[in-house]
């Protein structure tokens, strides 16, 4: 049935026309990889049963450049990213949808690789992509592939996780080394190329979260420190909860390569993006228990307690430097760009 020349073909405007070419692209590429009963059904909306309870919904647009990077690609990233946002409410992710914006001229072989990777990530996470849409824009009006994914999930009984629940006295945990994703992206960005063994940490964290909320349903906040990094995410939580935070520079896990890349480019690991890490804020009484569960899970092996929530009407995140000095850890200002001074 496939009339697509996936090996040598490119995305053409007709693939977004809604006509026969669109149908061919969807059947021979998207459904072939993401195969499930919902997509095969081919309706405008996909149906599923739910029990009564609390659900969550989350969406993320993915526009990463380059599309393929060490440790992942936009396909796997778009699955992990949204699963993680759903999981950060303590929820069990159920289903995903995916909206593609393709640029005319993008190689079908590249698209095939991306969708295959997406399908693999979805299978491994056991969260199917049940609805999708594809549009094509003229060359020069897109950037290869953009993928917006949306996820829904159910929140277990007794779990109430939200960014506004951090309280003075809570402990702050991070699930592992920071900055891997952003460093991997930087290493493969045009004009900046450097060689490193660092790979993106892109991963679906919902199973780790499930174990954490299982032992400690009283967790107050979870959040994945993506764009803007650990620093910005802590500032978001501080703002939502109206508290302050104090963290310890020495307690934050950072790989040597990430520090190296940051020194070279004048960046700060605290602001580098992560795609497979989470920040957990929980009452001090359960912090050690949560930490053990995290460290026992492959995605939390290097988890650490990095600080605590404090009262602070100025709503600052401060950090004790390895010197014993103190500094503010502010929101990311502008973009995170290499500097010369």
């Amino acid at each position, binding site marked *: 049935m496939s009339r697509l020349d996936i090996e040598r073909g490119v995305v053409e405007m007709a693939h977004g026309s809604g006509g026969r070419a669109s149908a061919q692209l969807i059947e021979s590429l998207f459904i072939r990889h993401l195969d499930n009963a919902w997509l095969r059904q081919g309706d405008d909306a996909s149906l599923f049963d739910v029990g009564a309870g609390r659900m969550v919904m989350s969406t993320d647009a993915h526009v990463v450049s380059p599309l393929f990077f060490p440790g992942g690609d936009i396909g796997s990233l778009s699955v992990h990213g949204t699963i993680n946002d759903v999981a950060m409410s303590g929820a069990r992710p159920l289903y995903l949808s995916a909206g593609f914006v393709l640029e005319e001229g993008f190689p079908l072989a590249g698209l095939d690789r991306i969708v295959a990777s997406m399908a693999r990530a979805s299978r491994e996470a056991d969260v199917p992509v049940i609805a999708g849409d594809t549009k094509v824009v003229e060359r020069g009006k897109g950037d290869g592939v953009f993928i917006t994914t949306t996820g829904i999930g159910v929140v277990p009984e007794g779990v109430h996780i939200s960014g506004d629940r951090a309280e003075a006295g809570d402990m702050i945990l991070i699930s592992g080394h920071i900055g891997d994703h952003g460093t991997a992206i930087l*290493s493969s960005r045009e004009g900046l190329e*450097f060689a490193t063994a660092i790979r993106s940490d892109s991963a679906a964290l919902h199973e780790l979260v499930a174990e954490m909320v299982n032992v400690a349903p009283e967790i107050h906040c979870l959040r994945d420190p993506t764009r803007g990094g650990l620093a910005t995410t802590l500032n978001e939580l501080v703002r939502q909860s109206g508290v302050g935070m104090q963290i310890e520079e020495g307690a934050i896990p950072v790989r040597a390569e990430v520090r*190296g*890349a940051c*020194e*070279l480019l*004048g960046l700060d690991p605290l602001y580098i993006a992560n795609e497979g890490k989470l920040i957990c804020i929980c009452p001090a009484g359960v912090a050690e228990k949560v930490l053990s569960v995290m460290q026992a899970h492959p995605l939390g092996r290097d988890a650490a307690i990095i600080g605590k929530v404090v009262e602070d009407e100025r709503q600052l995140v401060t950090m004790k430097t390895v010197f014993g000095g103190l500094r503010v850890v502010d929101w990311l200002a502008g973009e995170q760009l290499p*500097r*010369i*001074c």
Partner: protein
Amino acid sequence: MCLAVPARVESLDRAASTAVVNLDGISKEVSTLLLDDVAVGDYVLIHVGYALERIDPEEAEKTLTMFDELKGVEP
């Protein structure tokens, strides 16, 4: 001003006046146009993609030794 970091020279391309330097697992190609006689194993200061100057290991050692005067000081 003038962000510069010390990195180890891993290899040299004398014809192109470039070197590959390594900084804790990060390898990067830089220009050696500003430095004569760079050798593999040297540590050089990297600024805007150029090797600016060699790090002198003995002087570094000397500086570190000066910290020895700290022995006995209680912080």
